[in-house]
């Protein structure tokens, strides 16, 4: 009986750990240093970062919702991306020229800790 109780407690503890990990999205770190290179194209950015979360100015401006800090940022998972800004620390905004070369970019704090 005592062991069954211990096993149940241990099982619940393990379950809560797994549950906690599953509900804390981390995501793959994005290679933001790519943005500091000369002549970076829109295709290269999309290949590295994936499809953007939003487009502006007929696709000339891309926006990515990121989470993370201290130089390591990942995409906010799409599922949590839907409810306002929950889980979003930064918004990465990239502005491209008419020939799709990166001109300016900005990491805007949204809910930065």
């Amino acid at each position, binding site marked *: 009986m005592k062991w069954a109780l211990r096993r149940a407690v241990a099982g619940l503890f393990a379950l809560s750990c797994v549950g906690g990990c599953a509900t804390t999205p981390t995501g793959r770190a994005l290679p933001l240093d790519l943005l500091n290179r000369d002549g970076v194209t829109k295709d290269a950015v999309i290949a590295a970062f994936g499809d953007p979360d939003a487009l502006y100015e007929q696709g000339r401006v891309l926006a990515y919702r990121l989470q993370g800090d201290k130089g390591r940022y990942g995409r906010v998972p799409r599922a949590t991306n839907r409810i306002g800004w929950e889980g979003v620390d930064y918004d990465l905004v990239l502005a491209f020229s008419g020939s799709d070369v990166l001109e*300016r970019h900005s990491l*805007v704090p949204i809910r930065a800790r």
Partner: protein
Amino acid sequence: MCRFAHVEAWTRRTCALVSVVATTCALAGCIPFATPALLDSSSRGDITIAAQQKLEVGRTTRVDVLLALGEPDGRAVDDSWFAYGSARSSEVGAFAFLIVSGFGFEHVSTEVSRLIVRFDARGVVSSADLDRSKCGGFMAAHGCQDVRGGEIAAADAALAGGEKVVLLSYATSHVVEGTPDRCDIDFGKKGIDGPLALTDRAIVMRDSKLAYAGIAEVLPIKRKELESWVALKRRDGICVFIFLPDSGDTAPRVRELILDQIAAGAGNVIADPP
């Protein structure tokens, strides 16, 4: 105290609820609590005057705005405006303990800050207006300003649909219809949710319009489940009930506006409330 005849039904219900809570607290015990104004979980960081000051009318472009403030919370279909908003809420309430379980009740106060940035045809900022508003309510804040600028989008949609003048617009609304034989709100019947605009000619909701000329009767405000509903009878005999946020204030205002517009158009039968 809750039984006076002149006290309206919903006030009596609220009074009864407060009495039950107060009695429970007195008999069982409560833990009162109050929270500071915390950023809402779905809100972006505070929109302050510093955000507004980053923008220069006639000079800052739409791309500059995006680079400075990030994605907006709401945008026009043609990006002629962006809305940036934040919301902070505080709560005051208590947990009441019963013998084996308990319950909590609270009053929520929310402060919304919203920056509306409008652009001219060249994509340059033509105005940047920051305003703050407060809202509150029992268990949840009601009637708060929409950080996404939903009421502006509703007005835009009405104008795009051929309307000339938008008099009032709301980010959210709920509209239900009665049946041919029953002019009453049936919560079991599916209604329509969405932004709503009142123009000088019609009530516009998404793709549907109810022209003032199509209204046979403006009924007295319908009170149901502690809320106020604008009640109308169409010329086909079907009743239409409109619920808007902060209904206690908005329903009489909207009803008054509809009456004014019908009167201005003349030729309609209007029933005054008893």
